[in-house]
């Protein structure tokens, strides 16, 4: 297997995992917060937030990538700000790829968590309140454990999306081997030249293997959660 992929391809595999895991991890907390806001909040602009969250799904990925380039690029308003004050640079870094993947997967993550939040029995939260838990604690010790299935599903979707995301990534941070060349962009490059099919197929297989593993892990986690509820 080691021989089967070139060093540069190994790099893409490694990078893809790093990008996907980072994207998934980084979008988790914001995802939960936004899901809570959308499902429970009654505030001005809720509808707008809902639309914004869904945009990465509705727009062609290339357009999303383009907007990312405009805003989070070195010269973009947000990108410049982040760079200046926090030293965070997205443009043409793997962090940018992670950002692109996180944003593309965000609507999926949020939806999954929202569904679980909707299914939570509010009476249990009330009960926790009478037992002395304030809203934050209620969330942490009741709501959060109860929505774990949704969180796991959201993480799977986010991770899988990140493993396959290509349009926004290549538009935003290009396709630089070792820095921003993820599995999907590497696959894409192969499809663009004569004789690239073999390479594309090889990397596709790698992609599938990784996602099988990811699914397996997620099912295992979900089973554990479910067992805790029922057994």
């Amino acid at each position, binding site marked *: 297997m080691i021989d089967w992929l070139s060093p540069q391809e190994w790099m893409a595999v490694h990078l893809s995992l790093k990008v996907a895991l980072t994207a998934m991890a980084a979008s988790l907390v914001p995802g939960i917060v936004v899901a809570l806001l959308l499902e429970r909040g009654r505030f001005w602009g809720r509808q707008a937030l809902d639309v914004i969250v869904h945009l990465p799904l509705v727009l062609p990925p290339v357009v999303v990538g383009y907007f990312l380039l405009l805003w989070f690029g070195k010269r973009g308003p947000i990108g410049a700000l982040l760079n200046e004050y926090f030293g965070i640079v997205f443009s043409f870094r793997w962090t940018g790829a992670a950002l692109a993947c996180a944003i593309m997967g965000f609507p999926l993550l949020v939806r999954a968590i929202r569904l679980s939040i909707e299914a939570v029995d509010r*009476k*249990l939260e*009330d*009960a*926790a*309140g*009478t*037992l*002395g*838990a*304030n*809203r934050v*604690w*209620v969330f942490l*010790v*009741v709501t959060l*454990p*109860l929505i774990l299935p949704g969180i796991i599903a959201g993480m799977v979707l986010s991770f899988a999306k990140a493993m396959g995301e290509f349009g926004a990534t290549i538009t935003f941070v290009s396709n630089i081997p070792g820095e921003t060349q993820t599995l999907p962009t590497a696959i894409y490059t192969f499809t663009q030249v004569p004789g690239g099919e073999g390479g594309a197929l090889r990397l596709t297989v790698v992609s599938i293997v990784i996602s099988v593993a990811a699914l397996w892990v997620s099912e295992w986690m979900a089973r554990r959660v479910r067992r*805790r*509820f*029922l*057994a």
Partner: protein
Amino acid sequence: MTLDLDICHRQGSFTLEARIHSEGRLTALFGQSGAGKTTIINAIGGLIRPSQGRIVVNGRVLVDTQSGIFVPKHKRHIGTVFQEGRLFPHLNVRQNLLFGRWFTPRRERVADFSAIVDLLGIGHLLDRNPATLSGGEKQRVAIGRALLTDPQLLLMDEPLASLDEARKSEIYPYIERLRDEGNVPIVLVSHSVTEIARLATSIVILSDGRVTAAGPAEDILRQTNLFPQTGPAETGALIETHVLHHEEAFGLTVLQTRAGTLTVPLLDLAPGAPLRVRLRARDIILSLQPPEGLSALNVLPGKVSSIGEPDGSSVDVMLDCGGDSLVARVTRKSVERLGLRAGLPVHAIIKSIAFDREAVGRAPTEET
């Protein structure tokens, strides 16, 4: 404790308009299904926000819609046993029980975990998941969870509804102790007059969202017409007595009432201990002469103080037995046959056996 509640709340076509002032340490809410008992519990516990009104517990204003006060539920320190359990499905029994502990400051943790677990007989369930519990087991865990929060007020919505009698009679003394020693006032919803008669110090009767009667337990229980919904079986009088002595040989305890002595099954109380006894109207037989050769051990002399309105075939006869008010329910036919009328001297005959464990409860000690 004092509970002052004067609220108005609409849900759908149901309107609750309740005004309750209770000084009792255990206030029982009684009323038909759908009368609004749970709604009141929810209002006190902070689960609903009444459209209008005030709730004051022990001088602490929990709700006052006029001045915009609404203490959130987690700050009320009110333990609630819900009608439907509401155990946390993701926590095991032990974690459910200890849930409230996490939010109780260490020095306020008084309730004894293992004592409560033993009392409720749930020791073997501690590592189980709520989904695997039987109906009664869930209910017991829910009771334990509320008790273990060391609440300043305990709300119990039919906590014992589906427990067997044996379990109930183990739990009753604990609730009595809480009521008297633990200084934890309790609001209890129950459909069982026996239960209420044993435990309550005050009773509130609800009907269709409105309070139809309220007051100290003794007074309310004597008013036979207040329980149309229960059937007449449960009316009775509560009298305060104290232990005179024991007849160990026969396993009996003799109590002193104002009119004479009552012999009841042995009680584990020192002579002199105060005791509340419930004499059900249906358990009392009236006799014109002092009876002889009867197996019934208790005969209290007294006189008829008044005769109530007939209700079907039966009539409630109020007795004055040396100052204690008793009620006897007899047939109209008996009234005629015996010529019962106000002022007539009679003897109330009561079997010792009639005092089952539920009828003899600790007298609530004087309020401090």
